[in-house]
């Protein structure tokens, strides 16, 4: 992940450095400590000098792969057609106040995907819900015609007993408390209570529903990117899958359901995912190598 380039020991320079002029103010503190003040050079379009660390008038294309802090603003040109993802917010133009702007809401590194999709690459532990996201959850309660499912968010979500493939009023799946389900969010209007479903728009399960056996590991939300990478070659999961046969469901909420032929491999896999979530991608190969060594002999 890109954020590891922020390591002070790495060779990549601090992204904001070239935009500021360092003005050294010698002030004597209690113990003679020198204080340094950074003064911004950028001026706004109407000529006002901006003070503080807030940056305005940035271009989206120029800042790809660079660190941005909350409050930084991008200026959109005429006729620009963009899709903005998590961590960015759109502020439409207001006469006399601002032009078309995109505001950075979460600090991180700006990433771009084709075509014209921009979002902030942020290391997250909390998951914020969004419609059509696929999630893994645990049934916590039965409530009439519904199950109450825990997906790691503040509020628990509901799952209708009819939202399974082939379920009728007479024949419904009988799930128990503690069972694991894989579903996705319904596309409901805002301010509705959250609800998940285990069928797609055509009424098919497509792998969703009850997940029997297996083990649930909880990983940070940014780790989902590694586990579900759509790269064609050399992905993390392809390398792990070559060592041990396994089946897994990675929910967008950071819950990972793992199933392998032996209990010990399942535990080792969950430990591998958790270890990888706090390591930079350069160390993944080393982690996988040590995993292979620990597994060989009894798989």
């Amino acid at each position, binding site marked *: 992940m890109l954020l590891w380039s922020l390591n002070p020991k790495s060779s990549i320079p601090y992204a904001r450095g070239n935009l500021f002029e360092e003005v050294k103010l010698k002030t004597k503190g209690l113990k003679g400590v020198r204080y340094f003040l950074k003064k911004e050079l950028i001026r706004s379009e109407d000529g006002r000098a901006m003070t503080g660390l807030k940056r305005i008038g940035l271009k989206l294309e120029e800042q790809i792969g660079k660190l941005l802090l909350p409050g930084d603003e991008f200026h*959109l*040109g*005429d*006729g*620009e*057609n*963009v*899709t*903005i*993802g*998590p961590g*960015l*917010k*759109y*502020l*439409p*133009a*207001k*006469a006399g106040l601002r032009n*078309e702007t*995109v505001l950075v809401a979460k600090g991180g590194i700006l990433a771009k*995907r084709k075509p014209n*999709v921009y*979002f902030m690459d942020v290391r997250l532990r909390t998951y*914020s819900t*969004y*419609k*059509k*996201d*696929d999630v893994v959850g645990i049934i916590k309660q039965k409530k009439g015609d519904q199950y109450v499912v825990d997906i790691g968010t503040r509020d628990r979500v509901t799952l209708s007993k009819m939202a399974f493939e082939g379920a009728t009023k007479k024949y419904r799946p009988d799930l128990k408390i503690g069972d694991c389900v*894989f579903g996705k969010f319904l596309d409901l209007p805002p301010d509705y209570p959250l609800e998940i479903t285990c069928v*797609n*728009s*055509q*009424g*098919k399960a*497509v*792998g969703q529903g009850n997940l029997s056996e297996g083990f649930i590991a909880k990983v940070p*939300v940014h780790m*989902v*990117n590694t586990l*579900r*990478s*759509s790269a064609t070659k050399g992905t993390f*999961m*392809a390398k*792990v*899958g*070559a060592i*041990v*046969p*396994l*089946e*897994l*469901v*990675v*929910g*967008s909420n950071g819950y990972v359901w793992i*199933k392998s*032929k032996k209990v010990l491999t399942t535990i080792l896999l969950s430990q591998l995912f958790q270890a990888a979530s706090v390591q930079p991608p350069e160390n993944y190969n080393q982690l996988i190598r040590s995993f292979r060594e620990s597994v060989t002999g009894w798989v």
Partner: protein
Amino acid sequence: MKLSKGVLGLKFMRKTRDEAEKVEQEKRHRQVFKSDVGVETDAPSSKSKCKVTECPSYLQCERYTYARQSYGGMNPTVEESIKKGTWFIEYETGDPEPSARQEVVTKTEVSFEEGGDLLQPKVDPLSSGEESDGPVMGSIIGTIGKRFNRKAMKRAHDPQDNLDEATISSKKRKKQLWKRNQSN
């Protein structure tokens, strides 16, 4: 059309009056929010030329693979259905590679034909078969369709009914029917 206050005040105009009041109230409400300093309305102005769509989900932006994965033959059905493309994520911002999806579909069709499964009828893409339009209704359509098929099959196998109807005159047909009834 705007009605006068006098007309709206009549007893039978109550429903229309309520509707008009509701519209006015909404209008006032919107104005209050617009003038409020603390609240900003995010409706884009008509002058703006750029088009910005917000999509606050990593799943939609990053183009992940399908959530359920299988490696090393742990669950062959999962591996097959992802390879064939029957399991896929429904993206908001269009298909990532529509050409790739089309390729997969055509390949499966070809393999079905090559397999020489002649018992299976060829599916018309325009008809509401299980693959095209109504997969949920597909099974019901199938069961009802079977009834008609059975009748057609019976007719085909019955030697007496197998005669070409166009070649026989109506008089002859009546005779045949009469004979059959007598024999019965």
